């Protein structure tokens, strides 16, 4: 019997014209691991919320939702509470009590279990999830990853048959996220719990899932095995495409360009690669086919024009000299001898693990904290955006929110007129593509839109240096692209951007320079390609997949371009004995063509 079945379910939120769900029908079988993907606002959360009785949103809905053949609405409260578990996005907001053990016991308390039974079950769960060491701790002492693990454990303790997770790792760093996914995978394997997970980071979950459900504008686009979904999504360029695993993207791009080519057709009969491992093997087979082994290295080492913007001027915007910092006297140094120089008009990405002091570094540049030794110098107006953008929203509507930037007259020229303010708000709304949301409450925007609004608000203060703390946290891949466009526009206007991020892929694609912060100092620094090309573990999936064939190819686009370069050569070899210089030009040409195509896509 199907565990969860949707029959022609439609749903519309109050005061909305467009349906959030439209005629959705599908079935999820016992013990399946289903990943739901789609851009934000595509109805993922609405769909997931329909699977649990008390979470069903308020609005007009039609159709039937069955849980093991029974209508969800008629389920007993007790059964619904214990058999269907739901984990939400924000780790902090879901925690109810002050102690870890109490939080674990919360669900069982509600079910009215005896003390002895709860004691036994919490002990079991604490052991299984590795919570035992922090069982008696206060919840606010935990890290984000631990908090989300606690949320998962306190749902799992009721032994649900279905586990629903709504973007559970959106607020976590990649390492904590990977751990979290592993735990979910283990639960699915060990207990046969049916898992329904919505996620933007498909790189990892794509390989774990039994089935993938892709959504767009409230409709199901495709619901099938990961491989077939991958093939389907790559066949037409949808917004979902950007979120796919790198191997799939590269495969699809290469294939779509040369579909007519006989050789490639041979390849396309194969399985399409999903993991890095499969991607490597596929690249190998490609290499054999093209038989251009002798050329590969020469081609790859030619410097393919970087799509990343480089600094236009040599002026220094921010300079840190031998900076030492610690929070309290008796604590250890968080920064010990940081030297950093940021040029005007570049985008510097600072990477590093949790607790490496990235956020602290930003605080020093802003001047919130002062170093106890060393110098921090910033030329121009520095404005930083906090990690939680909610921390700056004060008004009821988007429009007023932007207007709030002008309330403090001293920050602007006193001569500014009302018309000026209105026109600059208008301009900003259009620039950020928020025109249609001008009357919306900031809290009702999606994560990506909130990020945009926050940046808009900060931009109205006319900063010369913009500091961003984890700007891509909880944002879908499509929004990441438009965010990157905005940042690029800013840079072309001469704004210097420093961002701190865990998001390797994003930094690799858009930053002009990267620096790695470790153990209180900057351990490596360089232009993005050189930086990631030189790393072997801390690097992008595209680089890990292609490093044995192409040197310094960091992003998917670069790998695709390099692949095409190989084919161009392959075709040309038959004709004449071209010089390497010609080959280089060939490569460059293909890239410019591709870039042009990309620009067309963007516009």
């Amino acid at each position, binding site marked *: 019997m199907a565990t969860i079945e949707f029959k022609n379910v439609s749903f519309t939120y109050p005061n909305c014209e467009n349906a959030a769900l439209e005629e959705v029908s599908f079935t999820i079988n016992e013990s399946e691991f289903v990943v739901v993907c789609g851009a934000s606002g595509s109805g993922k959360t609405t769909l997931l919320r329909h699977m649990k009785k*008390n*979470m069903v949103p308020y609005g007009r809905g039609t159709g039937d939702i069955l849980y093991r053949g029974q209508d969800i609405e008629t389920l007993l*409260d007790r059964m619904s*509470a214990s058999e269907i578990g739901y984990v*939400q996005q*924000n780790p902090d*907001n*879901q*925690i*109810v*009590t*002050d*102690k870890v*053990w*109490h939080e674990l016991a*919360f*669900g069982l*308390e*509600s079910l*009215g*279990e005896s003390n002895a039974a*709860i*004691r036994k079950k919490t002990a079991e769960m604490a052991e299984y999830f590795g919570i035992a060491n922090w069982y*008696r*701790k*206060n*919840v*606010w*002492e935990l*890290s*984000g990853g631990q908090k989300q693990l606690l949320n998962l454990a306190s*749902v799992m303790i*009721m032994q649900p048959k279905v586990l629903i997770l709504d973007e559970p790792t959106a607020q976590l760093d990649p390492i904590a996220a990977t751990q979290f996914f592993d735990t979910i995978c283990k639960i699915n394997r060990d207990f046969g719990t049916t898992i329904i997970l919505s996620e933007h980071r498909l790189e990892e979950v794509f390989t774990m899932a039994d089935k993938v459900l892709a959504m767009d504008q409230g409709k199901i686009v495709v619901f099938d095995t990961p491989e077939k979904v991958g093939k389907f999504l790559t066949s037409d360029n949808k917004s979902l495409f950007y979120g796919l695993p790198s191997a799939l993207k590269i495969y699809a791009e290469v294939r779509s360009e040369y579909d007519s080519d006989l050789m490639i057709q041979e390849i396309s009969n194969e399985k399409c690669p999903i993991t890095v491992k499969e991607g490597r093997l596929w690249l190998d087979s490609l290499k054999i086919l093209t038989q251009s082994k002798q050329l590969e290295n020469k081609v790859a080492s030619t410097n393919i024009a970087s799509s990343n913007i480089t600094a236009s001027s040599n002026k220094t915007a921010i300079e840190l000299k031998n900076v030492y910092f610690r*929070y309290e006297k*008796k*604590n250890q140094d*968080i920064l010990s001898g940081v030297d950093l120089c940021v040029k005007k008009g570049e985008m510097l990405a600072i990477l590093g693990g*949790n*607790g490496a*002091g990235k*956020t*602290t570094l930003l*605080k020093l540049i*802003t001047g*919130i904290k002062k170093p106890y030794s060393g110098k921090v110098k910033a030329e121009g107006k520095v404005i*930083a*955006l*906090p*990690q*939680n953008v*909610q*921390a*700056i*929203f*004060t008004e009821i509507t988007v429009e007023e929110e932007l207007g709030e930037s002008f309330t*403090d007259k001293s*920050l602007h020229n006193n001569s500014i007129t009302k018309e000026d303010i209105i026109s600059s708000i208008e301009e900003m709304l259009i620039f950020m593509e928020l025109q249609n949301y001008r009357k919306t409450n900031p*809290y009702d925007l999606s994560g990506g839109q909130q990020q945009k609004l926050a940046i808009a608000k*900060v931009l109205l*203060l006319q900063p010369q240096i913009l500091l961003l703390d984890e700007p891509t946290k909880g944002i879908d891949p499509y929004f990441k692209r438009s965010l990157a466009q905005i940042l690029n526009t800013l840079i072309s206007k001469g704004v210097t951007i420093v961002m701190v991020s865990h998001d390797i892929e994003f930094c690799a694609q858009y930053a002009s320079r990267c620096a790695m912060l470790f153990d209180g100092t900057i351990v490596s620094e360089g232009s993005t390609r050189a930086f990631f090309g030189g790393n072997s573990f801390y690097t992008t999936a595209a680089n890990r997949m292609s490093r044995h064939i192409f040197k310094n190819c960091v992003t998917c686009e670069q790998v695709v371009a390099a692949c095409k370069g190989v084919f161009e050569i392959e075709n040309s070899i038959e004709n004449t004995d071209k010089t390497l210089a010609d080959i280089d030009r060939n490569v460059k040409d293909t890239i410019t063509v591709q870039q042009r195509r990309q620009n067309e896509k963007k516009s």
Partner: protein
Amino acid sequence: MQSRQGVIMEIAPENITENITENITRNIAENLNAKESEFSRLHPLVNFVYLASVVAITIIANNPIMLCIAFFASLLYSVILCGIGGVKKTLFLVIPILVFTVMIQPLFSHNGNTPLYYINNNAVTLESVVYGLTISVLLISTIQWFACYNVLITSDKFLYLFGRIIPSLALVISMIFRMIPLLRYRFNEIDEAQVAMGKKLKGMGLYNRAKVFMKELSILIAWSLEASIDTSDSMEARGYGLKGRTSFHLFKWKMVDCVWIVAILLISGTCIYGIVEKSVQIYYFPTFKMNEMSIASYVTFISFAILAISPIIYDLGGKLKWRRLNSKM
């Protein structure tokens, strides 16, 4: 009563960096070890009954000898539990009380037969001064017992003890303990965001600073309300509101607890019987007059002394036992 809670919260807002968090957790762990005594590891009911009876006897005895015992025992125990530093803090509260009661009492009460001197034709009598002194010792001892209470009855013990009377109260209190550090953390975040946006400058006027503060407060409220929707969803999703909710705790009733509670009840019963039977009764006015010392009064004094220092001895015994065990190992 929640000063200990406060200490932890002040250290709280983590997430700044792992580094700090580590330090903090280590500090807290150390503090807990320092404060966790053999006696505090007994069942909360034992802790509570002990403190309740000791405080009750201190208050009703009204006898200098009993108060001496109470004073020294509570002083010693609070030093052991809170450390010298902790006691110093309570001293700031204690000294004014002492001065106040010793001075005020004789000014308003002119009973007693032994005038010391006259103010505005009103006698300041020796009896009144002594009575004031007794009362202040009583107050100080009670404060010291409460300092011990603060350490012994932690938030979860409190919840366990009183959560049974009103089950939803237990949860509400636990949620409040969760909220306070969370709000602090959020406020800190908001404040830093305002600074980072250049909205909060040094040398701003009082009016402007108040304006920024109000804005920060409004952000905090909006943010927290928004977040509380998630919290209530999460509570409901885990079956909150079903009938027959239980309250989980980590305490186990052991044999030792039985022994302790019986002993406490017996000894304090004897004490209270002695006090009620006026075997330790003392009269301050018009002149000092104490009932003749009998066996009953000796029994009352001794049993109270035993009661008052029993946890100290128990803790010391526990320490010695560990030392012995360690040396054997």
